[in-house]
């Protein structure tokens, strides 16, 4: 297929390469997402099939999925998915978790051996809830407490990486082609009301699994296709608010911006769209007065979070998905509906393979966010 054949299993070579996080790794990509607006749960099989159609949009150096509604039996607990380099790191991390959380359940995340996926770290899952005393003494709200603990593990404990930390959702990612990653994690055995997927085409070998997409914090997950030109402006601004961009990826900074604007500032997803893909001033000038005042305010007040350069993203959150293109629509993205299902993808083919017949299909304009929620639920300002 003309893919770049990088010597991934050459330990010597790998030792010389930096790990993602130590350098910027521009990537091209494929993204796909699907959601049942009635909240009906369905298997992860479809999302694997959908993303596999776009095999050529990734180069085997990263793939991953976010799945919502998959842990109904543990829905009140934060599901931490963690990569460990070795068991020493695992012990240190578990000691930290025990000091801060009540661990309800822990297990290895089930995987299926595959020649296509190699060099896996230890991959564990913990269902936790903050220790009431710790939470009270921190004077933080519960979600902020969890987010800070995630940052603490990811920046302070060597060899550990929490890559999923939401409730009733989970991220599954690896270095490899996305369809292989899906099979590796046995994604078809999970049932959820929404899934997103990502196939990555990085220009450099990532060196480890952390840089694969989706990138997630709490229940927010982002899959992203593009390379944003505003990266360092966004990164330096969001880091003012306690976030640490350890991976140097666009996706990471986008996820933090969305968490900051939605969870901490209380902007709705619609308002977030008009911050990160703000309408051009000339467009704002033509809006009716009330709308104009709001658009002007958001652009001015949150100017540091305008994202420029090409991107198409699918943001997952509790109860919904949001799809957005950059202002010039420099990346492909298509949305379609069939019955209670809504599909979003880089390519129409990846939708038709699941649902050949569609009620409606459209290409959202640049900066026009598409927000889909389960049962018409309000994508709330929390």
């Amino acid at each position, binding site marked *: 297929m003309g893919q770049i054949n990088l010597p991934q299993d050459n330990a010597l070579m790998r030792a010389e390469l930096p790990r993602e996080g130590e350098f910027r790794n521009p990537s091209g990509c494929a993204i796909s997402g699907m959601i049942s607006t009635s909240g009906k749960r369905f298997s992860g099989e479809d999302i694997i099939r959908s993303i596999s159609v776009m095999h050529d949009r990734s180069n085997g150096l990263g793939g991953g999925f976010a799945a919502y509604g998959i842990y109904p039996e543990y829905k009140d607990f934060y599901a931490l998915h963690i990569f460990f380099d070795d068991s020493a790191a695992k012990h240190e991390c578990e000691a930290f978790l025990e000091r801060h959380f009540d661990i309800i359940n822990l297990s290895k995340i089930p995987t299926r051996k595959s020649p296509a996926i190699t060099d896996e770290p230890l991959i564990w899952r913990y269902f936790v809830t903050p220790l009431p005393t710790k939470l009270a003494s921190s004077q933080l709200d519960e979600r902020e407490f969890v987010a800070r603990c995630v940052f603490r593990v990811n920046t302070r404990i060597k060899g550990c990486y929490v890559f999923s930390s939401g409730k009733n959702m989970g991220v599954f990612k690896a270095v490899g082609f996305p369809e292989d990653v899906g099979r590796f994690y046995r994604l078809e055995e999970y049932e959820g009301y929404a899934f997103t997927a990502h196939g990555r085409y990085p220009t450099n070998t990532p060196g480890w699994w952390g840089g694969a997409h989706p990138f997630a914090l709490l229940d927010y997950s982002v899959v992203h296709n593009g390379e944003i*030109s505003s990266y360092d402006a966004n990164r330096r*601004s969001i880091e003012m608010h306690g976030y640490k961009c350890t991976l140097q990826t666009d996706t990471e900074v986008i996820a933090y911006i969305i968490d900051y604007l939605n969870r901490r500032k209380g902007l709705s997803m619609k308002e977030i769209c008009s911050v990160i893909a703000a309408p051009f001033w000339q467009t704002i000038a033509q809006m009716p007065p009330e709308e104009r005042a709001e658009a002007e305010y958001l652009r001015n007040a949150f100017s540091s979070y305008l994202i420029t350069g090409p991107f198409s993203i699918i943001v997952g959150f509790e109860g919904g998905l949001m799809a957005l293109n950059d202002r010039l629509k420099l990346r492909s993205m298509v949305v379609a509906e069939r019955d209670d299902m809504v599909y979003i993808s880089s390519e129409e083919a990846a939708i038709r393979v699941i649902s050949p017949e569609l009620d409606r299909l459209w290409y959202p304009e640049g900066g026009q966010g598409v927000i889909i929620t389960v049962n018409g639920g309000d994508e709330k300002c929390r």
Partner: protein
Amino acid sequence: MPINFLCPEYEVVRDYDRCIACRVCERQCANNVHSLIKESGKMFADSSKCVVCHRCVSLCPTRALKIVKSDHSFRQNANWSAKAITEIYKQADSGGVLLSSMGNPEAYPNYFDRLLINASQVTNPSIDPLREPMETSVFLGKKPTELVRDENGRLQNNLAPQLHLNVPVMFSAMSYGSISYNAHESLARAAEALGIYYNTGEGGLHEDFYKYGRNTIVQVASGRFGVHKAFLESGAAIEIKMGQGAKPGIGGHLPGAKIVGDVSRTRMIPEGGDAISPAPHHDIYSIEDLRQLVYSLKEATEYKKPVIVKIAAVHNVSAIASGIARSGADIIAIDGFRGGTGAAPTRIRDNVGIPIELALASVDKRLRDEGIRDEVSLVCAGSIRSSADVVKAVALGADAVYIGTAALLALGCHLCRNCQSGKCNWGIATQDSQLTKRLNPDIGCKRLINLVSAWDHEIKEMMGGMGINSIEALRGNRLMLRGIGMTEKELEILGVRHAGE
């Protein structure tokens, strides 16, 4: 005392085959360099009086004149330069402080020239500003920390007063008095046409220019010259001048010769007396005093205008800026050691302060480290020479820049650096009516508009190359810069990587 005679550094060279003895040069030169020798009918030039302003060269109808650096020299000495020697002669002669004008001309490192700008290739597309919208307008002022919604959940506008600029460039403070009425009129009209701002400097605002108030920043400095309620209310913003890059730590001095007529009235001081601005504000001996002045000015103008605090770039500039950001200021202007002046002691201009690039990088980083970067906007000044400097300044962290010298160059200044003499042959830094009329405000205004518009085009081209279509995405975007020929420490302070990294 023959030691008094110093061979001039520059010589006026006349091509006698071309000279028609029309005496234009003689009439144009306020320094009386040129004269007609009656006996021979030939023009004579006394190079010792020449300030190298090129007025005669530019107006000579037969192109007979040029000014060249003299090859006369002292015995070569790597330690005692000709400059050092002649300055000693001058001071031994006069017993006075040496005066200079315009920015520091010494060969200190220039960091803008050691920064290179990025462009897109393959992984993301560059954007063509001729085909796609490319936005260079910015708002200056505090950003809200809390959002307020009405009962219907609609966001309320709780923004502090802002300045809106169509281009991230403003004309920096130059007082009426230090520069002429026509120069001020040119700046005011250009600012209005461009949708930007000019700055009154510490000299009050001439009553004719109140009509440009929407594009005017009024300055309050240590002498409080020309400050009254109507003045404060006339502008779009108020700037408290704490320091100036060309002369950090000292005040200002406008010689009595320039305090004539309208200048005297506008400054509210008697004609002919020197206007001395004290080194400190005598009501600001500490940061808590600054806060009081900031809020006094806000009270006086009913919290309708942003307050700018302008400081010189000195060694602990980042700590000072951090203090200012917590003192109610909406905008901080930082003026680097290459910034211009109408008059400053030479030793101070050439030895005090630090480069704006380092100061800006360090202030932007400190404010972010402290989480208060959104409390203020940053404006940088002190030798912004081109659109590339603007792009680099914004990428280092500035919201906008001030230009002074570049604006004067657009008006005809040739950087002869003799503003303090009051004999500006280009009609800019003078109050001599014979000279001021040489600057036509219609033409001056047009040239300023041309300059800023040209820079705006170039900024857009560079932004498009980087794949950035709005200037706010460039602000503080230091990954778009790489350093060349710098030490690790310099790179660390600028927060950029070396080219090739």
